[in-house]
């Protein structure tokens, strides 16, 4: 067969290999392997292949049916956040040595990935003010679910109850429920109070000696900063752990770090730190904890050691926690994680440095504050929660938020994320987000446009 990309064997070479094996045709070889009754007798019902030029055309045509956030004034958040990604990151992670390596099982020839991941672990620890971080999990939502299971393990099964407190992203909440479905943990939600933040009194009533952890998201789903020290105190008083989930880790450059606020496990969505927004993935789950709990942590870990000549080197370590050794008793089933995404995060944090990261975080907040005040001032619109926030806030709309968002999208404005996507009854609310990428002129345009719909509710 000719003209098949990425398959170098020529007809002559195919024949030479068959000769070595003593088969006359490729089919005859397969007859010796696959029972006749199992063989697929018709061709796969897939279109014929495309040459590269046609493939590029086909892919580009489909991409052209989409409007990227860069072509709009976008105020979308709710779990994925647009930030500027330094150009150099894509070039560095596209290096074939990084891109086309497998998991670093052979450390002598994988020092690049291993050192970079070790640096990533260190950077995540610094950002969250925690002791130890793993080499990444799939995303922020699955990281929270893993943290919940880890808390259960630390409670040695005597603390079956996990409390998810306040406004946690409903998708993350759902992922936790999926992971908890097997029945080993009992998940209980403590809904937010009237101010949009964790209802501390309700939380106090809920925790008990059977509680493995109190998990909380900060900034929470509606953008508010939670009272982490107080929540940690409530959890710790009952002997439970505090788990903190961070949807955009830039917040940790501005607000007090979860590790300094009593957190025992900190997870986060790493996408905002240098990853393309890419329609929801690949993203990366950041996962950090205290030294005491390292052996209960899921996922891969890179450690620093020495080679036989005494030189510094890096290896995958504490592997006995993992599925390939402990099998059904492993701390998690995770194997392939998000290695290359973790590298992007490491590059981003190094490129920003302490000053850059703080400036980005401050700009996010300043711009979101500007927008929030302006929207709150439009008659008919209201920002219900007044607590401290980072870069996202809830807006009550005078018309159906989903209709408003659709209408404005046609004018090149992605105004926000309607809450009806998760809560069908909450038709007149949307989440609005600004980051350092939002221009004042775009925000003014959004405000003007919202002011125009006021009264014209559909």
């Amino acid at each position: 067969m000719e003209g098949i990309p990425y398959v170098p064997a020529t007809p002559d070479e195919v024949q030479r290999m068959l000769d070595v094996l003593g088969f006359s045709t490729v089919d005859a070889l397969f007859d010796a392997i696959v029972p006749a009754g199992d063989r697929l007798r018709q061709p796969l019902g897939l279109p014929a292949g495309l040459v590269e030029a046609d493939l590029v055309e086909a892919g580009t045509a489909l991409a052209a049916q989409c409007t990227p956030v860069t072509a709009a004034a976008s105020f979308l958040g709710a779990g994925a956040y647009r930030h500027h990604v330094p150009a150099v990151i894509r070039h560095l992670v596209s290096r074939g040595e990084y891109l086309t390596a497998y998991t670093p099982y052979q450390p002598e020839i994988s020092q690049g990935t291993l050192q970079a991941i070790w640096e990533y672990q260190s950077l995540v620890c610094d950002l969250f003010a925690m002791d130890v971080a793993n080499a990444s999990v799939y995303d922020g939502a699955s990281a929270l679910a893993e943290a919940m299971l880890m808390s259960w393990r630390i409670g040695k099964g005597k603390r079956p109850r996990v409390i998810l407190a306040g406004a946690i992203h409903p998708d993350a909440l759902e992922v936790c429920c999926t992971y908890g479905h097997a029945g080993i943990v009992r998940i209980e939600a403590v809904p937010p109070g009237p101010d949009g933040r964790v209802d501390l009194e309700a939380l106090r009533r809920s925790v008990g000696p059977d509680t493995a952890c109190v998990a909380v998201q900060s900034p929470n789903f509606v953008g508010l900063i939670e009272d982490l020290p107080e929540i940690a105190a409530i959890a710790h008083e009952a002997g439970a752990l505090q788990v903190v989930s961070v949807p955009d880790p830039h917040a940790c450059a501005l607000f007090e770090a979860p590790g300094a606020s009593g957190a025992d496990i900190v997870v986060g969505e790493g996408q905002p730190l240098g990853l393309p927004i890419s329609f929801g993935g690949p993203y990366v789950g950041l996962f950090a904890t205290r030294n005491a709990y390292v052996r209960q942590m899921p996922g891969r870990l890179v450690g620093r050691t020495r080679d036989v000549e005494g030189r510094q080197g890096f290896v995958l370590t504490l592997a006995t926690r993992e599925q390939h050794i402990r099998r059904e008793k492993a701390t998690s089933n995770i194997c392939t994680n998000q290695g290359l995404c973790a590298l992007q995060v490491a590059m981003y944090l190094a490129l920003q440095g302490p000053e850059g990261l703080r400036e980005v975080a401050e700009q996010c907040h300043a711009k979101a504050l500007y927008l929030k005040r302006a929207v709150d001032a439009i008659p008919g619109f209201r920002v219900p929660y007044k607590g401290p926030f980072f870069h996202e806030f809830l807006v009550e709309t005078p018309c159906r938020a989903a209709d408003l968002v659709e209408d404005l999208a046609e004018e090149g404005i992605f105004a926000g994320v309607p809450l009806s996507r998760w809560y069908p009854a909450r038709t007149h609310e949307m989440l609005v987000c600004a980051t350092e990428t939002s221009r004042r002129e775009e925000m003014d345009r959004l405000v003007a446009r919202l002011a125009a719909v006021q009264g014209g509710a559909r």
Partner: protein
Amino acid sequence: MTRPLVTSGASGLLQEEPLIFERSVPGRRAAWPRPLDVPPADDLDPALLRAVPPRLPEVSEPDVVRHHTRLSQRNYGIDAGFYPLGSCTMKHNPRVSEDLAALPGFGGLHPNQPVSSVQGALRVMVELEDALAEITGLDAVTLQPSAGAHGEFTGLLIVRAAHEARGDARRRILIPESAHGTNPASATLCGYETVEVPAGPDGVMLPESVRSLMAPDVAGLMVTHPNTVGLYETHLREICAVVHDGGGLVYGDGANLNALMGVARPGDVGIDVMHVNLHKTFSTPHGGGGPGAGPVAVRAALAPYLPRPVIQRGERLAIDWDRPLSIGKVRSFYGNFGVLVRAWTYVRQMGGPGLSWASRMAVLNANYLRARLGASYEVAFDRPCMHEVILTDRRQRPHGVETMDIAKALMDHGFHPPTVYFPLVVPHALMVEPTESESLDEMDAFVAAMEAVARQASEDPASLHAAPWRSYRRRLDEVLAAKSPDLRYTWPSPEGSASGGD
């Protein structure tokens, strides 16, 4: 012992590279946001603000470029050469896929955009779902799982949900002893107890073994097909019937699907649910440990249980969240979309005939290596294999040379080692998977290297114990790493007396 001759490699300019933290110089930086065009914020209570800023390195862009360029050069990827890592399917990673995934119309989409503005992205997903259904012989597909093990977890939850929907809670699951460790770990995560199924003497599972273990509380069988010793499960059709007769479902681990495209379809044989590793069979780069993607394909009867949302077909594609029987979400949003675009690209470029040919050549290559390597190494199951072949160190052990020594020695000969000590059912295994993208001359060079190592094993075994000699680092002390875990950098104290590196 003699130090082997250096035969290749451009090592003349291989500099030591410090930690990124050790490159830090106060006041250096690499990135700046736009000047602030709104008033600075005045609303925050200082008590909420971070007291001690994160101690990130202060470096320039050239620093970061040098650092990662040099680190990357300490790595070996499929771009650099043959990577016969069994069960990992290290095939060539096309670059056109990288370009397409990075198009702003794909890479620049926010997952919460109005659905009217993402039609092309949804079309890619729908076409990929259809292709995976056709290749596996199943009916419906979710693209949400992020990796193979995540797919296993998703698929087993679907099995569980299907049983529960019939009021038939079952608590055990059968798993062959040769299975990858993720299988029992995923089963436990789904609340199942695992029961090991022994392999028959010729490396494949026997219907009798499954029949004797099948019971009313057995939810099903989790089978890797082709199996982890590289063989086609020849009795699978009968085994599936046994499981189905007992009211169970059959989960297929699709890690080895690269042997089957257009050859035989797991769904036709009786598998009900299976995951597919896009970072193996569908050529998306593994990235040194991800991101991957582990879509799950199911029979029509199981489709209602798929994670939500699903894409609603039609002229205008929509996202359907109203799935009352769904097991729920297994991660945020819709999956590793960037990986899905790359896999779609691969399927479109190869086409049906190309994918079928790829599987045929992957199997031919593995058998060629089996025949050639059998001259110097013991072949665990010496009969036609599928996409990979398992060797052992049996002929080298009398010289005191073990699998690990062979693996490390191969590095000195310019090749990435095969998968070692897996599967556990073959003691001291060396698992070789060439894939279809290796050429005959590359494989012949690998055979020559393996033969040279075998000769070295009999002539100078001591040199192998110390291998590798030529890699950037030599054997690393894994005991030290595990006994005194050093998992992060600690900055030197402000006095500057300590040097953080030591």
